[in-house]
Every structure is written in C-alpha cells, then in structure tokens.
C-alpha cells in the first residue's frame, strides 16, 4: 500500500503545493496541464491502477491525494493535512502570502513526515 502523490489547490485553482512519493509513470503531458485536469474534481474514484481521494473545504481549498488500490477512506487524513498542516503552517505564517504556491520549507517537510508516518504508506511501492 502506498501514497503516490498529493495536490493542494485553492478556490481559484491555483496549485498551492504538489509532492510525490512513489509515482510509477509520468503522464505524457506537462505539469500545468495535469493540474488543470486534476482540479476539475471528484469525491473519490479508482481505476484498475490507482485511487484518487478528494477533500474540499467550505473555503474552496482542495486536497487531492492519489494512492494505490489498497487504501480505504481517508477523509480524516485529508482533513488533518488541511487543518494541522496547511492552516497551522501556511495560513498562520506571516511570510506565506495566500493564493500563491507555498514556499515554506517547514510545511513541505512536516507534510512529508506526516505522509511517511501514515499506516498505509510503505517505503517500497506496490
């Protein structure tokens, strides 16, 4: 079981953050085009290869996480990413302007540690 990648979008569709851990194939399109596809949004869906989990807040922040098929419902995980990481380390950071890609190293490293600590994240994909 593993996590492939994670996107954070704001209400205007600006991609605030992107991280990947185990991504087997790169899509044959540029990153910008890929962001446009991702943000048009679902609640969750899966294909034979991966599962996409979606979480949206009343303020329009969207968390999109792609995992492999072994992962069940993870709404509380996505909520934690929003409230304990994004709100605490980005919204409350005086030096992070809202509506732009997040530059904070602290946010990136705490998010990475959190994802790696999840029970369904294993260091080896598949």
């Amino acid at each position, binding site marked *: 079981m593993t996590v492939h990648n994670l996107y954070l979008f704001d209400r205007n569709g600006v991609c605030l953050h992107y991280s990947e851990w185990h991504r087997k194939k790169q899509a044959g399109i540029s990153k910008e085009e890929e962001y446009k596809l991702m943000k048009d949004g679902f609640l969750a869906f899966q294909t034979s290869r991966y599962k996409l989990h979606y979480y949206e807040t009343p303020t329009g922040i969207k968390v999109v996480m792609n995992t492999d098929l072994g992962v069940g419902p993870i709404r509380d995980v996505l909520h934690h990413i929003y409230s304990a990481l994004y709100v605490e*380390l980005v919204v*409350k950071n*005086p*030096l992070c302007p809202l509506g732009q890609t997040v530059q904070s190293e602290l946010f990136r490293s705490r998010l990475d540690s959190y994802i790696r600590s999840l029970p369904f994240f294993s260091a080896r994909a598949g």
Partner: protein
Amino acid sequence: MADAVLFEFLHTEMVAELWAQDPDPDPGPGGQKMSLSVLEGMGFRVGQAMAERLPRETLAFREELDVLKFLCKDLWVAVFQKQMDSLRTNHQGTYVLQDNSFPLLIRMSSGLQYLEEAPKFLAFTCGILRGALSTLGIKSLVTASVAALPACKFQVVIQRC
C-alpha cells in the same frame, strides 16, 4: 478570554502594514529602522500596561533578578501562553532571555528559511519587555537576535542613570 491566535494575526498585519508604508525602499538595516522603532514603541506601551495589570502576590520585588523572573514566567505566559525557556545573567546588569520555540516565529520555519525577516517579528516583543520593566521602575535597552528559527534570544541591558 479571546482566542490567542487573534493577537498573532493582528501582529502579523501590523508588521505587514508598517513595511508596506515604509517610504524608504532600502531593504538593508538602515531602511528598516523606522518601522522597527515604531513597532518597538507600540510594544513599549503595551508592556507598560501589561505590567500594571498582571496580578502578583508580592507588590515589591526584592531584587532585580526577581523582576526578570517575573517577565520570564508571568508576563510571557500572559502574552504567549508559555514560559521563557532560559534566563542567564552576568550579575552586572545584562540578562539573556532565551525562547526555544517563540510563538511568533514557530510557524515560519524550523531552521534558516526566512531568517532575514525574523527581526521584524521580534521588535514589538522587545518593546513589551522594555515597557514592562519601565513600569516596574527599571530603565533598560532590549534587543533580540535569531540564529535559527524558531529559537530567539532577548538581551536586556539595565541602564543605570
């Protein structure tokens, strides 16, 4: 009791507003002086009032060190919901107060990112310390330094007339 985060947001906006209005575009230490001293002055008046308002069992502090301990415990808890992590002195009027996880810096970074911006977020607090000391009858000079976020040191030098 108001949500403690309200003060943090207000402080963030004060710093941002002062920097936006600073007519001097020079980003170096000279250009920042005006805004830093305005922030410190505001903190001074807040500190003066806080020291009057905080209840304390003993009305008279027996010695200078007791006043500094009061700042590290009671004042810091009232403003930041935590105590200062360490207090050192040379017993000749200089004190170094160290906070290893200063609440106004803690969400910014854990290390060196944003280091050059950090002094802007310490000026108001230096004023709070200087103001509180002033109410308690002590004239001082307070400066702050950051080596790596979120730890910072406040240096208090007592001014003897």
